[in-house]
C-alpha cells in the first residue's frame, strides 16, 4: 500500500501495526490530526460533515497541483509555473468555448492539453536545454501568465458548461474532491507502479547512477514536467469550474502552496523521496489551517502569523518524531 521508495520489511505484521507504521511514515499526518483535534475543541463547527466536505473542496486545487509537483520534486526539480499554467489552461479553454465555440468536451481537452504542452516545453528546456529547473519554470511562470492576459485581454471569460462540471456536484458528490482523489490515485500509481515512476526516483536519488544504468534521464525529465503541466491544467479547470469563469490572475502564488504541500508531506527538495499520500496530507493540512482560522474568525493580519507558525510546528513535529524514532 505504500507509494514510496521505502518498501515494507518482509516480516508479516498485523493490519493494525501496518496502519500505525503507515501513519508514522506519513509526514505531517500526526501534526494534521493534532491540528484537527485542537480546532474541534476550539469550535465544534469545524467537525461537521458539510465543513469537512468544504475543506476537501478547498484543498482540491492545491492538492492537484501538488500531485503534479510531487513528480517534479521526486526528481530533485522545482516547478514554479504551475499556478500560471493552470490559469493559462483554463483561459484558453474558456476562450475556445467563448470565441471559437468548441464543443464542451473539447474545451476540457484544450485545457488539459495546453497545460501539458506548457509543461513539456519547460521539460524540454530543462532536459535538453540544460536550463536549471528554477529558471526554466520561472520563465514559464511569467510567459504563461502573460499569455493568459493576452488571451483574456485582461477580462475574465466564462467557461463552458462541461468545464463547470469540474466545480459542481454530480449526484451529490463534489467534483473537485473527485478530481483530487483521481489525481492522487494517478500520482500514487505512476510513482509506485510504473517504470516511469521508479525512474523518477532513480533520477532524483542519483542522476549519475541513473544515467550509467541506461535510464533515459532526459525523456524521464520531459515526462515529469509534462505531467506537472497536465495536472496543472486539471487544477485550472477545477479552479475555473468552481468560479464558472477563467480569471486572468487565477492561481497566482499557488506554486508556493503546491511546493509547500509536497514538502510538508515529507519529500525533500534534494530529490529521491516524496509520495502521493504525503502530498495529500500536506495539501489538506494547508486547507485545514485556513478553514480553521476563518471559522475562528482570526483577524486577517494575525492569520498570516498563525499560518506561518502552524506550518513550522506541523513540520517540526514530524522532524522531531522521526528523530526520536530512529
Amino acid at each position: 500500500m505504500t507509494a514510496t521508495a521505502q518498501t515494507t520489511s518482509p516480516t508479516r505484521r498485523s493490519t493494525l501495526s501496518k496502519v500505525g507504521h503507515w501513519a508514522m511514515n506519513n509526514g505531517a499526518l500526526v501534526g494534521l490530526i493534532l491540528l484537527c483535534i485542537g480546532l474541534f475543541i476550539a469550535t465544534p463547527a469545524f467537525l461537521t460533515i458539510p465543513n469537512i466536505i468544504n475543506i476537501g473542496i478547498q484543498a482540491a486545487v492545491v492538492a492537484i497541483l501538488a500531485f503534479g509537483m510531487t513528480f517534479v520534486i521526486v526528481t530533485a526539480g522545482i516547478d514554479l509555473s504551475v499556478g500560471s499554467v493552470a490559469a493559462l489552461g483554463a483561459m484558453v479553454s474558456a476562450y475556445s468555448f467563448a470565441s471559437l465555440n468548441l464543443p464542451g468536451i473539447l474545451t476540457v481537452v484544450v485545457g488539459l492539453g495546453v497545460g501539458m504542452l506548457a509543461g513539456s516545453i519547460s521539460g524540454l528546456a530543462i532536459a535538453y536545454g540544460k536550463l536549471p529547473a528554477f529558471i526554466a519554470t520561472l520563465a514559464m511562470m511569467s510567459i504563461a501568465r502573460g499569455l493568459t492576459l493576452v488571451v483574456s485581454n485582461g477580462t475574465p471569460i466564462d467557461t463552458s458548461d462541461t468545464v463547470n462540471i469540474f466545480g459542481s456536484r454530480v449526484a451529490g458528490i463534489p467534483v473537485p474532491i473527485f478530481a483530487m482523489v483521481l489525481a492522487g490515485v494517478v500520482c500514487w500509481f505512476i510513482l509506485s507502479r510504473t517504470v516511469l515512476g521508479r525512474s523518477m526516483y532513480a533520477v532524483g536519488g542519483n542522476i549519475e547512477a541513473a544515467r550509467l544504468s541506461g535510464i533515459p534521464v532526459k525523456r524521464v525529465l520531459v515526462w515529469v514536467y509534462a505531467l506537472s503541466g497536465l495536472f496543472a491544467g486539471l487544477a485550472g479547470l477545477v479552479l475555473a469550474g468552481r468560479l464558472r469563469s477563467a480569471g486572468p490572475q487565477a492561481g497566482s502564488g499557488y506554486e508556493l502552496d503546491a511546493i509547500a504541500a509536497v514538502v510538508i508531506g515529507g519529500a525533500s527538495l534534494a530529490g529521491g523521496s516524496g509520495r502521493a499520500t504525503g502530498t495529500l496530507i500536506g495539501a489538506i493540512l494547508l486547507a485545514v489551517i485556513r478553514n480553521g482560522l476563518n471559522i475562528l474568525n482570526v483577524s486577517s493580519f494575525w492569520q498570516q502569523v498563525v499560518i506561518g507558525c502552524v506550518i513550522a510546528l506541523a513540520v517540526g513535529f514530524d522532524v522531531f518524531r522521526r528523530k526520536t524514532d530512529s
Partner: protein
Amino acid sequence: MTAPLLRLDHVTKTFGPVTVIDDVSVDVLPGRVQVLLGENGAGKSTLIKMMSGIYQPDGGRILIDGNETHLPTVKAAEAHGIATIHQELNLVPQLSVAENIMLGRTPQKLGLVDRSSLRRHASAALERIGLRVPLDRPVGTLGVAKQQLVEIAKALSQQARILILDEPTAALTGTEIDQLFSVVEDLRADQVGMVFISHHLDEIARIGDTVTVLRDGQFVQEVPADTPENELIRLMVGRDIEDQFPRRAPEQPGDVLLSVEGLSSEGHFEDVSFEVRAGEVLGIAGLVGAGRTEVLRAVFGADRYDRGTVAVEGDQLPPGDVGAAIEAGLGLVPEDRKAQGLVLEHSVQDNTCLATFRHHARAGLVDRAGEKRRADDVTSRLNVRMAGLGQPIRNLSGGNQQKVVFGRWVLADTRILLLDEPTRGVDVGAKVEIYELINAITDNGGAVLMVSSELPEALGMSDRLLVMSAGRATGVLESNTASEDDVMALAVSNIEPAQTISSEGEAA
C-alpha cells in the same frame, strides 16, 4: 588463440591539455581475465570507461568481435553485452535492493513494473554472489560492503559477454571476495571475457590470466598473471618496494593518549573498551558489519552514543562534538571518501585545507597564501597526482582523492588519527607512503586507531589488534605474534555460523 571479444586499439584520451591515456591497446579474450595494473591515476578507470561507453577515445579504435565499433552511450555498450562494475558506487540510495539490481532494465508489462519478475531476477542475482539482504530494503541503509555486493549483483545479472570489474574488492573482506572469485570462475567457464582492476596484488595471481601494466597513461608491458608480486610492483611504480608494511613501532609505548571505556550504542555496538598509547597503532579488525565504523565515528564525536566515555589524556570528550574532538587532537579519515570526506566540486587545495583553514585564519580571514603553501607541501609529500591545486577534486583518481583526505589531517598536526579503511583503493606505492605517514605520527608521540578489513594490513601495520564481532570487542591480539586464523576465530566468535556473510549491521 581465440579472437578477442573486444580490443582497444591504440586508444588515446585527453582531458583539456592533459593526456590521460596515450596509445594503449588492450584485448579482452573469451574466458580470460585481463588485469589492468597501475598506480593511482595511471588511467585504468579511464581506459575501462572507454569500453563501457562513458568516454569516447580521442584517438584509436574500439574493435568488437573484430569490427570497428563506436560506443556513444552506456546503452550502446550494454547492447554489445558489456557490463561494468564501476569503481565508485552507482546506486540510488532511496530505491530498494531489487530495483537497484535491475536499474535501467526494470521488467515491465505495458509500462508497469512487473514486480514478481523483478524480485525473481534480483533474488537470483543475489543468490549468485551469496548476499542475503531483504530485497525491499532501501539500498542506502546498507553498509558500503553490501552496497558493493549489490553493485556486483547488478552487473552480473546482465548476462554480459564482457564484464568489467573496476576495484570490486576494495570494500570487501575475505569471505565476500572468495564468493566473488568463485563467480568469476563460473563466468570464465562460460567464456565470458573479463577485465579486472585491483590494488590487491595477491588477487591478481588468484584469478588473472594476463596483466597489462600502465604507468602515467602509457602502456608499460603485458605479463602473465603469475609474475611475482615484486616484479609487478617494479613494473608498476618503476622501483622496488622492499617492505610492504614498514611498521616502525617505538621501543617503548608512551602514556595513554586515548582511552575508551564501556562505549555502547544501541543496535550498533556494546560495551567497547580500549586504550591507545602514544607511539602506538591499535588496529581494529572484524567482519563487515561488526560495528567498527560506528565505534570510530562515536569516538570522533560524529555520532552520539548511549553509554561510556571517551577520554584524551584523561580529559573526557563531550559526546557528539566533532569540534571538541578535533580540538583534542583527533582526526578521522572516513570510509566513504565521496560521501563523507570530500567536497567533490571544490579544488584540491580547498579540500586539503578543509580541517585547518579555520585554525590558520587571522582575525576571521582566510590565510590564502599560507594555505596554498601548505597544500602544496602536503600534496607533494603525499605524491598526489593532479593537474594543479586548483583542479576540482572530482577529477582526481580515487587513490589520489584518498591521499588528500589523509593529507588534511597531516596538515592539522593530528595526534590521534582515526583511520577507517585508510588504503581502500590506494596503490601499493602510495600505501607505503601512507604507512610512512602513520609511522611519522607515532614517531612524534601520536597514536593511530586503524580499522582495516585487509588482514595483512591490519596485522602488518598495527602493534596490537582489537577484534570485533557483531558489535562486541572479542579480544586483543599482539600483531607480531598473531596469525590471520587467530583474527578470524575472534571475528566470528560472537555470531552464529549462518550469519557470517549476511549479518545485519543493526542486529543487536
